């Protein structure tokens, strides 16, 4: 209860600060090129390919997991600076 309350409180403050930024539901269109539609179609075709070549799908999932790790690391560095774990 205490942890949840503190996290909610923290989320309330952070959310209030970032609520002034625009909410994102799709990727932007740049110079007439709709990145969101391109990505959705591209991933859809890739998923069709994965239905037969399933080892590639597993490798792709591994790649995504690795990217998630690097994004989290970037986020930690953004907020913690040199105090972030693993920072050299």
């Amino acid at each position, binding site marked *: *209860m*205490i*942890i*949840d*309350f503190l*996290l*909610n*409180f923290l*989320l*309330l403050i*952070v*959310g*209030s600060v*970032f*609520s002034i*930024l*625009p*909410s*994102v*539901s*799709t*990727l*932007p269109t740049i110079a007439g090129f709709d990145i*969101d539609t391109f*990505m*959705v*179609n591209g*991933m*859809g*075709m890739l*998923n*069709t*390919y994965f*239905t*037969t*070549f*399933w*080892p590639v799908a*597993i*490798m792709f*999932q*591994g790649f*995504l*997991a*690795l990217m*998630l*790790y690097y*994004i989290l*690391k970037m*986020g930690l560095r953004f907020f913690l600076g040199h105090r972030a*774990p*693993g920072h*050299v």
Partner: protein
Amino acid sequence: MHYPTLLSISKKRGVTTAFKALIFLGMILVSPFHTHAAVLYTNGDQTHSQSYTFFGPTSTFTYTGPTQQVKSISVEVSNTLFSGGNASGVELQINSAGGHSCLYNDNIDHSLGMTTNGSSLVFYTSTQPLTENVSGDCTLVNGNSYTFAIYFPHGAGQTISSNQDVSANLYFILNSTLLDTTTHIVDFTPEDGASVSNPVTFSIHGYVNPADLGNAVVGIDFTLHNIDQNVLLLGAFSPSDIYILRNTLATTSGDFYYSTTTYIGTGNYRLEASLQRSYLSGWIVNPFSPIDSDMSHQFVVGSSTFIGSIQQNMFNDIFGAHGSASSSPTSTAALLAGCNPLGAFNVVNCTSAMFVPDPVQIQSLVLNFQQGVASHAPWGYVQRLFQIMTSSTTAALPTFTASIPTGPGDKPFVYSTVTFDPGEMLASGGALLDSVRDPVDNKSVRDVFYPWVQGSVALVVLLTIAADVMGSHRHDTGEVKSKKT
């Protein structure tokens, strides 16, 4: 925003207590059913009476009382029903209407003015009720409609004519073994977690035990809180609480009902229903009263807001400490019972409840983070990218068509069209691969190798992350050391 109905009620805070009591009594008297809903206690059973007037042999009535199994039904009819007639019996029926479950129809003629079968049926006079025991499970549900009929005599098929105005009092002897006879809030709407649209109906059903109506009286509060950010910001200048019922005093025991329908703005709301013992004519509420029923429902009108959701979660946390959280009552709130020094104190349960969020809380927290923080620029783009990349939706692959000149000779050429569909090729190839089976275990190539490939990829990912965390791939060239020295 102005909501005339509720605000006009909230402005009645200065009205005298006696006037509010009269209003509350009036609300009960003009409830949807035709009459009062008094509750009496006889030999441990609860008698719920309803009286109404109907025309003709049958009439549909709406039952307004505690939802409970019926042990017996009594009917008290007026003299005019039988005057001038030569009827020798009356048949009592409680049938289902609108698909409701209670079905009671004994198909027996019950003689007038006579006692038949001793305990099973007693009809005394027109002012004393005809009583019939109910066999089986006949459960009357609050708010449901039922058909009540009087026929006489059954054998001749003679019924009350449609022009006869018959007054009847119905008594339902309810099975009190499962009945909560303490003063409490039975239910109220909108329900917890509901998403509703305008106009919104607020209703409350409570029960007041006669023993609690002594020197003190029971106060009822029904309060609506708007917990949106705009209301919170302006809260210092404009109170956001709307009192639907404000310290209204119960003057009669038994069930009480209140309902009102009004328009309110879209957003997040918390509806609080409380029942407390008051004294000094209701101006002071006794905080140590044993009647302390305080419940809360949280609902959304139109669409929810991020900060409103956070507010609801935090309210649940605090309220959960008192064992009456509106969400997850069987997890954190139940564990918190172990923190009560006067009850079954359990240090493990207490500590768990204090520090370990339950799954509902974590789920809500993650959802709020996604909606309130991660969906905003710039990381909203990253979230959207991951959303697309982790999607399992498939799309048709593009087909290629070519026109190829065929055949010998000069112009004009003869063209043939060739179409290549990679989707068809992949589907056929996949089916072909899956058709190759191990003769011993009947497993396909995928069945055999999937766990191995998955394990290998997971190992590579974990080793890469471990190497990055430990910095083992960064070679010490001595450059840093030499700089320090």
